[in-house]
């Protein structure tokens, strides 16, 4: 099992990247004691059979690792959601893409800590590939919504590249400042 909620997100997003997605959207939403993550991609998707077995830890498509007989990303996630009383769903269509939704009750004693959200978002935005990736972090408080959104293309345009250590550090500082001021950033529906 992963140590933090952020680790689950990094893991699932990697599936989206490996499914040859062009657009990946990652939504992080906080609402009281509920932390919700939604990962949507337009990758190759899965058929009904695969969708039925994908939560089995002893299922893998065997493409990336020929001799391997386990696939633990989604099973780990489902296991943790079940343990802390959250929701989990996965929808997929061949050629259309996949959506994974999960939520965690953060005040449950078995809920892993959130982890380092800034580093995680930086990692998601800089994973190699030509895809676009958009991360949105929202805090809901009754009718109020605060948050920010950041796109890989936007960061590439501003920084020129996002692979040298200097650029990554700047990106991290930018993300940290978005996090620090999240409560001043009202979203009007």
């Amino acid at each position, binding site marked *: *099992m*992963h*140590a933090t909620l*952020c*680790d689950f997100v*990094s*893991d699932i997003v*990697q599936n989206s990247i*490996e499914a040859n997605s062009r657009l990946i959207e990652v939504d992080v939403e906080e609402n009281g004691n509920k932390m919700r993550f939604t990962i949507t991609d337009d990758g190759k998707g899965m058929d009904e059979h695969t969708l039925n077995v994908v939560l089995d830890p002893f299922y893998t498509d065997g493409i*990336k*690792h*020929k*001799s391997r007989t386990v696939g*633990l*990303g989604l099973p*780990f996630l489902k296991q943790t959601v079940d343990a802390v009383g959250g929701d989990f769903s996965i929808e997929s269509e061949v050629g259309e893409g996949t959506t994974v939704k999960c939520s965690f009750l953060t005040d449950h004693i078995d809920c892993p800590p959130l*982890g*380092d959200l800034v*580093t*995680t978002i930086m*990692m998601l935005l*800089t*994973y*190699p590939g030509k895809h676009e990736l958009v991360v949105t972090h929202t805090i809901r408080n009754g009718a109020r919504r605060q948050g920010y959104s950041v796109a890989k293309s*936007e960061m590439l345009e*501003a*920084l*020129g590249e996002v*692979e*040298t*250590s*200097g*650029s*990554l*550090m*700047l990106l*991290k*500082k*930018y993300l*940290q*400042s*978005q996090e*620090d*001021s999240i409560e*001043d*950033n009202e979203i009007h529906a």
Partner: protein
Amino acid sequence: MAKMTLEELRKLRDTKKNEIKKRDLSGRDTQIVIGMGTCGIAAGGKIVLDAFLSELELRKIDNVIVTQTGCMGLCYVEPTVEVIAPDMPPVIYGKVDASVVKRIIDEHVVGKQMVSDHVFDRPSADIIKDGGKR
């Protein structure tokens, strides 16, 4: 701290670019690839990535390429890191933590000496391109 705008980010980038031009480039053409599969993440790959960035910043090395990859096939010694540096063979280090990160930068990237007690060779053949001849 006030929220940074995209315009401010661009300006910081330009300042940094000029600084790099003036400096001796000790990190030139060096690439660090961090394993971020399920195994890498679970073993602390993210902490290693963070450690590389802050240690490089501390040493004012801005031009090392730091990227991520999936599982390298060495799950038993995660977190794993591949270091490709000029005049050095490509090396995969295993059991990397923040203190090993410091050694990799000082001894391998800057000093051109392998960190022998953490070398775990090349990745398994089933995931590397061209049978490992790249």
